[in-house]
């Protein structure tokens, strides 16, 4: 892998060819998916992109700033419900998406600050439980805000949400191109792809920016960061707000894509899964997070084939496949973490931290010792 990468860097022409190949692959992805795996997988492909956006958003909070957030799905819920309530027959409002998505980002960002503000003094696991509680509080409120005034329609959720549409082109409908029918999953794929690429770009630019370095400093040692003149309060709040706003946008997209939202989509397990994507892929490393999102979204779906596989192998279904599916999924989590504790693609900084070269470490110690003498 590294050999290929360095070769690519050395040769400009090869690099361009690789970029071209990537662009080609990404644009034809839904077609390839449908040909290879069937139409239902195009929908899964859309979800892969959606989770990628969520994971990249959470990566800002957890991977960059090192703040363990177990309630991330709360912001996703805020974005989704904002879109659902303002673009559905529930209130009879049908605001356009280009107003709703930025609004979702803004409101979710505000919620991020709302969560961040009281938790600034908390560290590590205390933060984890408070964010977890925050996510649960949002879910409980969504579940119960149907009385005395019906705001969220309670556990039934909100139905018939408007699909995203631009200039009369609705992403929700069937479209004919060259005489072929393409369902909404295709149009949403390209929309999600553009937004995911945008979020990846923002994440890359953030990582080595002044703010990104401030986050890294806080993650490594908050006291030292403060001593170096970083306004830890503002920078931490910024991390929460930015991560949350990514979540809010993804939430809005989810609502439009799904056409239906209910509190059940935003339970704790969802937050945990997004966190798993980051940690499993390689925290703080964008490529790792992307890989984690792809893997953890497709794995449970791929494991649905365990039922047919059993029939093929033993002639009958021995174990309930839906059950076995999650069992294998849990085992996979354990096994991957045991063999790759820093994630599948660890970030270069973390790699350095984890495996200090013994000679260098020994030398450093020797010099300290010498200077003391």
């Amino acid at each position, binding site marked *: 892998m590294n050999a290929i990468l360095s070769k690519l860097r050395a040769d400009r022409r090869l690099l361009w060819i690789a970029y071209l190949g990537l662009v080609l692959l990404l644009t034809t992805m839904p077609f390839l998916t449908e040909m290879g795996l069937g139409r239902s997988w195009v929908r899964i492909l859309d979800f892969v992109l959606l989770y990628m956006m969520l994971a990249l958003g959470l990566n800002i909070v957890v991977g960059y700033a090192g703040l363990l957030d177990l309630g991330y799905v709360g912001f996703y819920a805020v974005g989704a419900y904002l879109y659902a309530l303002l673009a559905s027959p529930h209130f009879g409002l049908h605001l356009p998406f280009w107003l709703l998505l930025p609004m979702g980002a803004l409101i979710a960002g505000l919620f991020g600050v709302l969560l961040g503000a009281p938790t600034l*003094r908390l560290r590590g696991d*205390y933060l984890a*439980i408070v964010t977890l509680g925050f996510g649960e509080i949002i879910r409980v*409120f969504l579940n119960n805000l149907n009385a005395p005034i019906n705001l969220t329609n309670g556990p039934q959720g909100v139905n018939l949400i408007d699909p995203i549409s631009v200039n009369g082109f609705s992403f929700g409908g069937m479209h004919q191109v060259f005489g072929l029918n393409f369902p909404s999953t295709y149009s949403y794929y390209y929309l999600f792809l553009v937004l995911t690429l945008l979020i990846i770009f923002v994440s890359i630019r953030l990582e080595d920016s002044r703010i990104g370095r401030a986050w890294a400093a806080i993650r490594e040692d908050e006291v030292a960061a403060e001593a170096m003149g970083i306004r830890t309060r503002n920078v931490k709040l910024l991390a929460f707000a930015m991560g949350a706003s990514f979540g809010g946008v993804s939430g809005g997209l989810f609502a439009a894509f799904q056409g239906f939202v209910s509190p059940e989509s935003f339970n*704790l397990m969802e937050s945990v899964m997004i966190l798993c994507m980051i940690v499993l892929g390689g925290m703080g490393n964008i490529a790792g997070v992307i890989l984690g999102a792809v893997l953890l979204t497709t794995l449970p779906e791929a494991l649905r084939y365990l039922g047919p596989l059993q029939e093929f192998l033993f002639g009958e279904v021995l174990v309930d496949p839906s*059950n076995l599916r999650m*069992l294998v999924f849990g085992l996979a*989590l*354990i096994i991957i973490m045991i063999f790759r504790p820093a994630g599948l693609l660890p970030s270069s900084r973390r790699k350095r931290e984890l495996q200090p070269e013994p000679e260098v470490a020994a030398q450093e110690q020797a010099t300290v010792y010498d200077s003391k003498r």
Partner: protein
Amino acid sequence: MDIFLQQLVNGLVLGSVYALVALGYTMVYGILELINFAHGEVTMVGALVSLAAIGAILGMGLPLPGVVIVLLGLLVAMAVCAALGFLIERVAYRPLRNAPRLAPLITAIGVSIVLQNVAMLIWGKQYIPFPAILPIERYEFLGATITNLQIFIVLLSFCAMGGLVLLINRTRLGRAMRATAQAPQVASLMGVNVNSIISLTFILGSMLAAVAGVMVSAYYGLAHYYMGFLLGLKAFTAAVLGGIGNVGGAMLGGLLLGIIESLGASYIGPLTGGVLGSHYQDAFAFFVLILVLVFRPSGLMGERVAERP
């Protein structure tokens, strides 16, 4: 007033169960600085195993009183959970002792998913009723009703907690545990076998979880493969409320959380003029937690500890 007293009693019962589970979280955290997310699932396994054992004993038709049968089921559950706790630590946490902090969190989630699904494979998705073999008696006390089961639960959990405190503070083993929690390396230099102390911590915590699981299923009259999730979440909240890593804090946090919850469930409606109903019980508990942590960032009894480098 009688409602207040009744809810206080209910909260005390619920809280003593939370406290037992919270102890498991806090002991592991105190030594490994690890949130053992699978602990709630151990409670669930304890409850289901005890029910299976009780069912088997009833099936044999021995002329034993109900209490003895339940206690036998409890013993079986404790043994199974002790083995399970030992196994979880060996398989999922020990290989990651020196890994980044979040890695064991993910394996913990993996273990919890695996345990849930194994339980579902064995016991199915339905609720399993607790056999009505315990002679329930009701006592009236200042207008509140207390059953002998409730009294038994509170007494048993207080005994278990007292025993644990004695073990930690008065015995050689407890001293080794405290030493390991403070500084594992130094403890191992002093001749403490750190690995076996950690295993032992998991075993002890899992046994307490088994006790809690059996009592919860006896109290509510049923057990279910998914019951560990919420219970574990509440207990973890309780441990943090009291100050995670602190044994006394876990007990205090558990009892407080139970009381807050049951009082909240009955008073949140009248207090907010009927706007918020008792459905908000769970949100209320978390709200109190956040409020407490704003003013005491390390929990009620936790000490301000420096972040580990």
